[in-house]
């Protein structure tokens, strides 16, 4: 079980505005899922390296040369709000 305070902390980190009902539901469900995930502690992984990625690929480089990029108008086409060539957002400070 995780507490409502923990749910609120994670919701803030996740930038989610949850209702009281959602907070109660996620506290219960996340608690159950994390308890289930606790089964991983049965395994001794002291000497096991982590696998973040399965392909033996490192640092993929390409030549540094001029190319075509997404035109500005296309990059802006889905903007919910804009002013000129800027994405417009509410005041930050």
């Amino acid at each position: 079980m995780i507490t409502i305070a923990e749910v609120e902390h994670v919701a803030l980190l996740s930038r989610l505005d949850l209702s009281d009902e959602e907070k109660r539901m996620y506290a219960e469900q996340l608690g159950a899922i994390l308890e289930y995930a606790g089964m991983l502690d049965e395994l001794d992984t002291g000497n096991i390296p982590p696998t973040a990625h399965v392909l033996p690929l490192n640092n993929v480089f390409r030549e540094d040369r001029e190319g075509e990029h997404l035109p500005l108008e296309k990059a802006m086409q889905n903007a919910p709000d804009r002013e000129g060539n800027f994405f417009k957002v509410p005041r930050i400070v």
Partner: protein
Amino acid sequence: MELVYMTAHELHRMLSAREISAEELCRAALDRIEKLDGRLGAFITVTGDLALDQARAVDRRIASGEEIPPLAGIPVAVKDVICTEGIPTTCGSRILSGFVPPYSATVIEKILARGMVMVGKTNMDEFAMGSSTENSGFFPASNPWDTDRVPGGSSGGSAVAVAAGQAVVALGSDTGGSIRQPASMCGVVGMKPTYGAVSRYGLVAYASSLDQIGPISRDVADCALVLNAISGHDPLDSTSAPGDRPDYTGFLNREIKGIKIGVPGEYMGEGIDPGVREVIGGALKVLSSLGAEIEEVSLPHSKYAIPAYYLIATAEASSNLARYDGVSYGYRVEDPKDVVDMYSRTRSRGFGTEVKRRIMLGTYALSAGYYDAYYLKALKVRTLIKQDFDRAFEKFDVLICPASPTTAFRKGEKMDDPLQMYLSDITTISVNLAGIPGISVPAGFSGGLPVGMQIMGRPFAEGTLLQVAHAFERSTDHHKKFPEL
């Protein structure tokens, strides 16, 4: 047989011989969508006019005497998580309603360059998070074999479209079983290629180290044709595997005498429906009669795959989905007080329950104090799961198990219990963690519902999977049974 239930390789012959036109074929698929989709809910967007234009272009090529490539004129449905320039791409989410991508995914460029005819974008669990297509932000999809049941997920719409003859083939994406499990439940063929075999450029990310695009089709030969079309190195995807890919159709029509098949005991016992087990047992007898050598094998860390997956995938998702903030595209709430209010309320209203649940879980697993205990631990267990497969493939050419522990379940049955829903991916999920290829092929029926057999192989051994799958298909007729609609 009805045009809509023919396969791409049969239709290619008919198109080339001018027995049918690409326009007729396209209209047959569009009529089928029109007639059935109110009940099936397979499509979020139907691209009828565009499809007819593409079909007529193929007809002009045929009329001019050109020899068309194998998939030209073939109707294809595309999961709505793959970007299509100028055509709405929603990922099954309200947060992307109205979003029109300014570019196309590499797989879209590839299928269009081959003259394929895109009939629409298919329904899915929101951001590919789910196993039943009930988490779609718009409407659930229904299984064509029994419309009170789910089609599986998350690529449920793509599997339904192929099973119901609304498209001849489809593209899906698979992060934990999202191609193979719905293919199994809808009685069609579905493959998750090796991680890196197919470009992810333009595939909207869920869990980047696990996501892979793959084909859904009505038979194994069509699967090989679509894989030929979409696989290959792509400089636009830094995780794309370098090197050439073989012609996958070269693996069809081969014998399987002497092929060594391992059957993981962990995927044939507890948690697997007895009816499913019986069908897979029967399928193994068919393979044995074809000369395959079958033995039991153990993948001892199998039971840890679900918890490891749900920590890794959600951690990656919590990071990937941070981009939906209402700033540069997608939904934004009205009258935000300030920027944090805009982010929080936009995301809370735009995302559905399961997506929020996974963002929360992933954020928790990555947060200070829990990173080592959950996320890092899961990455280490991922190594153990991968090593299980490495050891098994020292002895066996392929491994076989059910592609889903049950047949299609009833709508609503697992919606209130996320853990039960997660367990419906128990036989597919470890394949994504290990990065290996897996295919589900129709293996029979239990209680009138399709059962899929999953064949898993070494990295980049898609050819071997197709060889075994095709040998099985040539000896059976499950792929020639269609739902009554």
